[in-house]
């Protein structure tokens, strides 16, 4: 199936949506969701880079004849997903502790460190 440039458009949309969330939402959990959105967009971009029309998965075990998609971007994406998991977990734990100390998740109220 020819997908054209659709994945890239979707990736750009995801990044923009994530940045929008990051800029205009005030809830810490929503900020983390925004970061995840940007990450997903970038991951989609990476996978789409390696895609070839009608390509198959780049695994030789019982592979049917046909062109394979590029494996490197998939490896990059996997690494980036793993890193994303760690950062998201860390951010969410910070959000939990911030909530315990401040009693709120409103980014506009968590500003004791300023100036």
């Amino acid at each position, binding site marked *: 199936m020819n997908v054209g440039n659709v994945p890239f458009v979707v990736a750009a949309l995801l990044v923009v949506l994530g940045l929008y969330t990051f800029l205009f939402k005030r809830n810490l959990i929503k900020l983390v969701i925004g970061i995840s959105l*940007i990450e997903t967009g*970038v991951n989609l*971009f990476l996978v789409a880079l390696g895609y070839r029309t009608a390509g198959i998965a780049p695994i030789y075990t019982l592979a049917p004849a046909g062109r394979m998609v590029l494996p490197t971007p998939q490896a990059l994406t996997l690494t980036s997903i793993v890193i994303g998991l760690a*950062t998201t977990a860390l951010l969410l734990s910070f959000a939990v502790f911030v909530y315990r*100390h401040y009693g709120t998740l409103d980014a506009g109220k968590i500003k004791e460190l300023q100036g």
Partner: protein
Amino acid sequence: MNALTVHAPVLLVAVPLLGAFATPLVGRFGRSARNVFVGSVILFTGALAGLMAAHVFGLGEPLVYVLGGADGFGVPLPSGMQVPVRILFEVDAMSAFMALITALVALAGTWYSFSYWRERSGGDLYHSLLLLLTAGIFGMELTGDMFNFFVFLEVTSIAACGLIGFRVWLKHSQEAGFKVMALYTLSGILVLLAVGLLYGEHGGLNIAYLASRVGGSLVDRIALGLLLTGLAMKAGAVPLHMWAPDAYGEAPAPTSAVLVANSQASLYGLFRILFTLYGATVSVGALGWILIAFALLTIAVGVTMALVQRDIKRLIAYSAVSQIGYMLLGVGVGLAVSVARPEFGRTAMHGGIFHMLNDAACIGLLFLASGAVIRASGTRDLNKMGGLAHRMGWTTGFFLIGALALAGVPPLNGFASKFLIYESSFRLSPILAVIAILASIMLLAVFVKVFQAAFLGPPPDGVTETPTGMLVPMAVLAVAVVLLGLFPGFFIDRLVAPAADALWSGRDIYIRAILGG
């Protein structure tokens, strides 16, 4: 050239990583066993960095280490085509120089931590994260691969934020941890996006390979913008510095010192990308002036904000931000004139790169001393402390050395590098030098304030001298500060000049080391 030297680049990452994972296991056998283990791991790492640096500086060309095989960086396919896929470390003089800085700061910070971390529990994980951070910083500095650079960038982000927010019972450290992690992650993702763009455009991730292919196309420029801004954020350039006072201020004192090395590693990445990856393919004048604009803002805002801080750690954090500006100024001037190549451009590079080493030593010393001050006075509020000099002679002396060196008072090391920056930026535009000198004077005023508020005044009750375990790392850094100040010519000839020239004129050598020809 023995086996240890050959494998030094990868061991510099693997050994601290091994130490990081083994520390919680060794910690089962008690506190002193863990300290001995962590101490020997970091000592071995420092020795490796020294060995590797001696080798690379003697070699005169980059040291290439291919992970997984010794037969070049490509994998030959049955069709005979070479695919540049292997991950490799490429260590030129600049990388080795940065590794030396990191080793110095990590050594001092880790040894200081042994006495500093007095809480009953958590010490194992704390030291584990510290080693992980060190491994990540080494990785950023030594890697020859853009994607690996991103991975190590994220490793340092996670480890650094783990350390910033480590003391979960402190309200502010959690706030700082969240903010810093969010901004680090954002900049990391954008660096990844840039790496993806470069990969899509040129089909490779290797820095040397990309450098040989990169032109001034639209995609290259977008990637450059993302990398420039993302790494400037992670280095703490104004107006992207807002995380830096939070991070340095709320982290445990020895961690703050290592975080400075982390910022410098990002700065190194920025310079590597501007000089080696892009070279002169995009207008160096514009890029140089972007760096100079960042630099002037950073110097001015950093130092003026430091003046009005009340929290001693935050104050030193803002002065650390201002020092990043001096490095950016030196290298920015060098970059702006790097096509015409006048002699003062090279001098400016020497100043900027030399200032990285000097700044690591002085700011590291100041953060360690501030940890001792906070320990003694039990507060971080400058308005509530005083008179520490009566009981803490050594700490006072070390703090004074660090403060004077940072403010650029001769004959200490800060002056030597700032001298080169002043003189060369004056040749480009006198305004730059004037701002830099004024800010330096103001920085002296800032430290007069700290010294007066914390060390002078009537003696407080129940204050004793800092434990020897914390004084010795400070002494190491103080000796480094004095030596660097008294013999700048020696260090510039041996260390700084090869490192700066690797950026200034080493692009072809860097590419040739991988691609041959």
